[in-house]
């Protein structure tokens, strides 16, 4: 049914919204009349009272005092008898149903209303639009890739390295691998006697600190159980704070997914932050465990919090995060740093995480785990990732020291090939920032684009695989100023979007300077900045300079040289120990934890 509609911009300047609405109503076949924005209220009432309008649509920005003006306008329409035949409707950014009711209008449409809603109302149709809940599906950015290698020379070198390493690993085990097997049975059995027996076996091959915590609840300093009341208040908070008018960060389907870290030490705080960021469109989280957890043999059970960086990746903690975060939110659990890599992957898989984070090279350099131990544990962890159908992301190890990019990329590709051989999907995460080696050697003196772009182009030319720059993007370009930090992150995100990567990890604006848990506003800062950056760049792209091609050529050559060197060794662990993927000059030392703890199977 055709409606007669009077469109009234009761505003001297802001009439663009009502013009858009008029245009849409015209397209839908309604009769509309748009008044000029300079009429007095009495003049508008005069026109409204003489026409035969079904609806009077009013657009007006609000400020203090404007409410009274609008209320008087409503009164004039009422007193002139216009309301007996016409519905009066208000639209404007801050309009809510409550404000429309307060002003006396029949209906209000605000910032989050859609044209479809307005047209349905005008046409008297029921339209069900829920502004609550996320209503999104989980992103999958691995299934579209074949993991076929375009660069056959590199493929051949990787085959050689991984074949030798996997062969070398056969017949070897560690306490971490044995604990993972026991833990799987412990979680799955309902037989109490058997469970106790298995726990005893677990304790025998764990450090006393862990046994004491699990057996006698005598936790390491700062660690304690989450209380019932904390859990209850979290659940109430989530129940009372259903996301309203959720935001989508990506402007188009090709824009990368956005991941943030969760690792405040407290799962309650992590989840609360997680829920808020979900509303602002975040796609997933990396759960980062505390550094001390990596140093002990064995993991502490239970719903645990502690007063330090990193959240304990117990089965219960991961499970709670999985339960309370939206099902569409991706969760990845860091596993590769320390003496519990297979068990962490197991717990992540059993608790419903979507991904896990493993890099056999990164985890065994720079105060990490012994390369031999991590190679054996990591291979088992990748097998478990495959078993739970969890892709694993591989962070670049050039972020912490001065390891050159080509060595880092060599490490990423070795992990990708191990994954391929073990039927697990790997996601390399090249550093996408002002990394230490770059700072030292001046590759980004001209701009921040060429060198970052060269890394992505190189990986894209090697194999058909997902790419997830990190970690976080814009690392070492951010300062203590939140606006600067958000800007810098968003520029890197825009560049990542133009390079067609699949995901990015982003920091909060106070991440490097928080001196404690980061605050929620700074989390949202960077998300909002990226949302605008994605909108700004859309499907356009940045131009690189000729330097990018030079970097690309140089990186490819040095990457191949590195892989050739690694391939000349007996296995990956030997290569790492000899410094092929990062040496003392680069600031990378082989890790010491778990030295000489690999066992030969009987």
């Amino acid at each position: 049914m055709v409606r007669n509609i009077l469109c009234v911009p009761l505003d001297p300047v802001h009439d663009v919204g009502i013009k858009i609405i008029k245009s849409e109503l015209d397209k839908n076949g309604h009769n509309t009349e748009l008044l000029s924005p300079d009429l007095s209220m009495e003049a508008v009432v005069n026109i409204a009272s003489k026409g035969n309008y079904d609806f009077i649509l009013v657009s007006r920005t609000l400020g203090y005092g404007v409410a009274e003006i609008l209320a008087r306008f409503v009164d004039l329409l009422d007193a002139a008898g216009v309301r007996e035949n016409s519905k009066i409707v208000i639209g404007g950014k801050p309009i809510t149903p409550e404000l429309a009711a307060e002003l006396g209008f029949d209906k209000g449409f605000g910032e989050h209303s859609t044209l479809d809603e307005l047209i349905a109302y005008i046409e008297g149709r029921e339209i069900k639009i829920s502004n609550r809940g996320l209503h999104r599906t989980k992103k999958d950015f691995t299934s579209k890739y074949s993991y076929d290698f375009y660069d056959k020379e590199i493929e051949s070198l990787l085959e050689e390295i991984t074949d030798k390493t996997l062969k070398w690993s056969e017949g070897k085990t560690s306490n971490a691998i044995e604990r993972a097997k026991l833990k799987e049975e412990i979680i799955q059995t309902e037989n109490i006697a058997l469970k106790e027996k298995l726990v005893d076996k677990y304790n025998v091959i764990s450090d006393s600190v862990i046994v004491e915590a699990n057996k006698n609840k005598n936790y390491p300093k700062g660690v304690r159980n989450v209380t019932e009341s904390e859990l209850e208040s979290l659940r109430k908070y989530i129940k009372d704070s259903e996301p309203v008018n959720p935001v989508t960060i990506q402007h188009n389907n090709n824009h990368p997914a956005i991941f943030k870290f969760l690792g405040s030490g407290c799962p309650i705080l992590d989840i609360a932050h997680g829920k808020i960021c979900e509303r602002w469109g975040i796609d997933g989280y990396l759960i980062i465990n505390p550094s001390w957890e990596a140093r002990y043999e064995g993991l502490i059970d239970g719903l645990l919090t502690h007063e330090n960086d990193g959240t304990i990746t117990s089965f219960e903690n991961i499970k709670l995060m999985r339960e309370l975060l939206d099902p569409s939110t991706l969760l990845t659990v860091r596993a590769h740093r320390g003496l519990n890599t297979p068990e962490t992957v197991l717990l992540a898989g059993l608790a419903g995480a979507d991904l896990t984070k493993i890099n056999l090279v990164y985890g065994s350099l720079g105060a990490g785990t012994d390369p031999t131990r991590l190679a054996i544990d990591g291979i088992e962890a990748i097998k478990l990732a495959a078993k739970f159908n969890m892709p694993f992301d591989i962070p670049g190890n050039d972020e912490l020291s001065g390891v050159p990019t080509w060595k880092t990329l060599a490490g990423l590709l070795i992990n990708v090939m191990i994954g391929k051989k073990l039927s697990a999907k790997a996601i390399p995460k090249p550093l996408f920032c002002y990394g230490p080696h770059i700072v030292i050697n001046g590759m980004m003196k001209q701009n921040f684009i060429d060198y970052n772009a060269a890394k992505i182009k190189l990986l894209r030319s090697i194999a058909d695989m997902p790419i997830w720059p990190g970690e976080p993007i814009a690392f070492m370009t951010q300062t203590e100023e939140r606006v600067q930090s958000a800007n810098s992150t968003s520029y890197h995100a825009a560049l990542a979007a133009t390079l067609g990567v699949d995901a990015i990890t982003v920091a909060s604006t106070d991440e490097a300077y928080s001196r404690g848990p980061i605050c929620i506003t700074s989390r949202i800062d960077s998300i909002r900045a990226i949302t605008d950056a994605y909108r700004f760049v859309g499907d356009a792209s940045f131009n690189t300079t000729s330097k990018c091609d030079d970097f690309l050529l140089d990186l490819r050559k040095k990457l191949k040289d590195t892989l050739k060197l690694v391939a000349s060794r007996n296995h990956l662990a030997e290569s790492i120990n000899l410094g092929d993927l990062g040496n003392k000059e680069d600031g990378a030392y082989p890790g010491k934890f778990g030295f000489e703890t690999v066992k030969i199977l009987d």
Partner: protein
Amino acid sequence: MQKIGIVGTAKNTGKTTTLSFLLSSLSHFKKNIAVTGIGYDGEEIDNITLLPKPRLLIEKNVIAATSEKCFANSDVKFELLCKTGLRTALGEILIVQIIKPGLLVIAGPNKKSDLQKIIDLISKYEIDYLFIDGSLNRLSPMSVVDRIIFTTGAARNNIVSQLASEMKAIEKIFSFPQRKCNYENVNSIRIITKEGETEIDLNSLLDKNDVLLLSEKLKRDVVAIIIPGLISNEAFDHLLKALKSKFCVNVELILNSPINLILAADFLDLQKLIDNIEQSDISIKYLQKPKLEAVTINPFYPFLHNFHYEAGFISKNDFYREMKSQLTTMVVNIKENGEELIKQIIDSKMS
């Protein structure tokens, strides 16, 4: 059933505070009370300034007419008495009886005809007092009530003398008499002469053209003109000229209610309108005439500081003294002498 409307000169002038006081005070006198509102009131945080607001506590047995979405965030328990079929921006208006007291946001009918329907429905429940909460500075639906309490305050204007002047003008407008006649339900303008009446195809007089249309039918022997809708300030001036040019004298201008005259001009211009009326040959009458029961005053005003609204206050004593000196109507600061208003309401009901 006494229908008492609470209207404000602006937002934050104390409507909710006045209504809360009336509801809680009269509940002690065992009166049967009903409440509705012409907007949306009783929320925790002001929709515009984001400052905390007084909330409306509704006692047991009170009958309330409010929109269905208001019950979602309320802690009252209630029995549904009837669904009205009338809709607001917050859903259908329901009439309920409170069985467990609590905080409730009131969002009732937003136009005069709907308010009359709600009054008709509520009148079936043996109610002593029906309170109709206003919204912002809205007035129009209040034509149908018996008594009006005006709230004014520093949120409207923090110059006390101006507040007193505009309230004095409002008081004057309410002082014009009622004209009992059979034209209460007409929808178009009528010119009454000694011989009969002429109908004009207009509801309101809003500009010069409307007055021209009317003046074509004007004769010298006109005794009254009935305007059921609005008369604008501009049209009023043209009408006076038209009457003069046709040598019409002692004409009664019969408006629907004082509210229709108040709406003719902004509050600050009302005195000019009254001066025009007093210098002319016409006399103002009303078809419906709510009584101006009292004026309540509120020294609070929100002001912008560092991009946020903060609370400010003018001198309550100066404000009270100035209003008392200018008005004959009762002046009440609810937080100081509210009980005088209660006594007046009870006494006038009994009389």
